[in-house]
């Protein structure tokens, strides 16, 4: 039985997030198990006069590729890969997993080879986005596996996800427009700041964000959404930060991660779990030890960590930083095959200072 919330989700994604218009070429990628969302998306995209390019992927195939491919095959990029990243006008990624640990048997080195090889293409993809030649949105579709990671029943997890997306609102698009206005005020305040200091448990991190634009993540690039972010100056970050929540990345994870920065670079890293994986990723390339993003989560509907970065990074009252690839649209210049978001909770005593002035206490902006 089709869930009517998926029809609503498809219409919000097309009508608000991506603003799908007649003639657009819209590429939708997601795992096979996202079939219940692919169908209303095909309908909605076509109704709008746009052309859907549906690209369901198999998690098992992806795993088999990483396990069985040789070095050359891991690094190979086909012309099809290239066209499908460079030609469409709009991109939608559906995030849904059948087993969030499916890649645990795969040598981490293989993932790194693959990412590094794809980096030039990824960069061109981001450049197209930054120039406004294309648009991209990632959407979470609830699955049992994600519910399990969140420690919730599937039905409760669905309510959590759809609640965070305001899909139960009589007019979800109007609700997102209001979110957008509220977040714009925070972004405006941050835009006047040069030196940002984040203080929390085991955390005292200073970043230079002078002249960097703060972007309002209001449901256009992620859905659900709720953060403001920028790319900090590449050589200026100093101090240390401890991440409160588990740090999943590409089907694997590290936990209890602590990082020490000097002149923008991670000079020391620790983790309670997954330290080897963390190091593997940090050593992927030169940019992987530098920050590509600093951000504040502002979605009040998301209050608990669920082991999914798409949600954890939006928890109202948290901040996060990402190692690796920066956002050109935020004037970031750091380049890497990595973009790994890690979240630090500010809700119990965390403080954010802008040029020495207190901007937020307990994660709440004044």
């Amino acid at each position, binding site marked *: 039985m089709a869930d009517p919330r998926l029809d609503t989700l498809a219409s919000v994604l097309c009508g608000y997030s991506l603003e799908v218009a007649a003639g657009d*070429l819209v590429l939708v990628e997601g795992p*096979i198990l996202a*079939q219940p969302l*692919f*169908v*209303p998306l*095909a*309908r909605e995209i*076509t*109704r709008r*006069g746009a*052309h*859907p*390019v*549906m*690209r*369901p*992927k*198999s998690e*098992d*195939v992806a795993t*088999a*590729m990483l396990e*069985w*491919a*040789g070095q050359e*095959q891991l690094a*190979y990029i*086909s*012309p*099809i*890969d290239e*066209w499908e990243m460079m*030609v469409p006008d709009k991109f939608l990624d559906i995030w849904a997993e059948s087993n969030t640990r499916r890649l645990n048997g795969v040598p981490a080195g293989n993932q790194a080879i693959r990412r590094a090889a794809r980096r030039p293409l990824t960069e061109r993809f981001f450049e197209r986005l930054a120039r406004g030649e294309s648009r991209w949105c990632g959407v979470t579709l609830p699955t049992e596996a994600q519910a399990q990671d969140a420690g919730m029943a599937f039905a409760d997890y669905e309510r959590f996800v759809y609640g965070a997306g305001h899909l139960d609102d009589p007019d979800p698009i109007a609700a997102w427009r209001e979110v957008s206005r509220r977040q714009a005020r925070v972004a405006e305040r941050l835009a006047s700041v040069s030196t940002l200091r984040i203080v929390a448990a085991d955390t005292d991190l200073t970043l230079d964000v002078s002249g960097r634009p703060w972007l309002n993540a209001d449901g256009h690039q992620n859905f659900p959404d709720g953060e403001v972010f920028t790319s900090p100056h590449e050589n200026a970050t100093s101090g240390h930060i401890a991440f409160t929540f588990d740090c999943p990345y590409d089907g694997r994870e590290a936990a209890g991660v602590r990082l020490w920065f000097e002149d923008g670079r991670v000079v020391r890293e620790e983790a309670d779990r997954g330290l080897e994986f963390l190091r593997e990723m940090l050593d992927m390339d030169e940019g992987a030890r530098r920050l590509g993003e600093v951000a504040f989560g502002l979605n009040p509907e998301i209050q608990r960590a669920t082991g999914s970065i798409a949600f954890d990074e939006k928890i109202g009252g948290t901040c996060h930083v990402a190692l690796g690839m920066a956002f050109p649209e935020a004037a970031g210049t750091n380049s890497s095959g990595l973009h790994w978001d890690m979240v630090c909770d500010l809700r119990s005593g965390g403080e954010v200072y802008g040029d020495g002035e207190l901007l937020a206490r307990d994660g709440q902006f004044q």
Partner: protein
Amino acid sequence: MSDPRIERLARVVIGYSLSLKKGDLVLIQAPSLAEPLVVELVRAALDAGANPAVRFSLPGVDHAYLCEATEEHLRFLLPYAVDEMQALDARIAVHAASNTRELSEIEPAKLRSRQETNRPVMETYMQRSAAGELVWCVTAYPCTAFAQDAGMSLKQYEDFVFRAGWLHLADPVAAWKDFSKKLHEIVDRLKDVRELRVLAEDTDLTVGVAGRTWIAADGDRNFPDGEVFTGPEETRTRGEVAFSFPAIFGGREVDGVRLRFEDGRVVKSEASAGQSLLQEMLSVDDGASVLGEFAIGTNYNVDRYTKQILFDEKIGGTFHMAVGAGYPETGSTNTSALHWDMVCDLRSGGEIQADGEPIYRDGRFLPEFAPDLTPPAE
């Protein structure tokens, strides 16, 4: 526990059918439910040093699209669709479905428009295939929808499919190589024939095949396989043919198809059910009412009609022909967006004459004309 025959199928397709080599770009297209086979194909392709790309389809998506699609949508071709067909070294299409009738309520005109739009891709595909630049294989993954159409349980149907590929044998590749030799002997005999006449119930059809190339379908382009085929001369087909089995297009059945040919073209078409679809398709374009293929099914492990053309056209003891696009490598010059196979049973009283001499009777080649094609024993 996964079925070991799935892995065997994948290994035969990659190693025998396509002979993939290092660096080949192979596109695997499959419905999502064929995922277990696709995983094995990917592994086998990687082992061969090839670069697999995978494209799945999902139940309900095409239906949703076609329901909403306007003429403008249907005229739209993905900007890199032709380039992609140029870039591939190999292509695998896996046939399977969740519901073989998914598109049965879609207006035939929509399917026809889409088919027409796809024509440049189809032409590139056929040209590159004829030039030997692109190898391809169509295979099938046994699924419940096909089993249901065939009137079998899934388990029975799996046995049918895997036996048709001789995948129950310890060394299926050896069996296919042996079979291939026999088919090549038949092809050698047929190459000097100028005219074939097929006689069966309500059927008396003559096709000109002079100078055309016969091809032994020995498991390279279809798997399972088993037929010999050519592209008949475009202007010489004449007479009448009544197809024993329903012709199926896009999940719709057209029953009791009868065609009359004059000077190579269909001049009269009738069906006891599905007449409008038949006529719609025959008028897709100029080439759609001309034969692109004439073939004789030679896989005697495929012993019954199951409503899947991949198998039905191979039934040992049948012949089939396709209206629409021909394979250039056979010498056919017919082009069309259509290629629609229809099958006629010859097992009870059917006969084929080559330049006036009988060569085939009651579903078997005469022993003086061809080697015995009985499938290998267990």
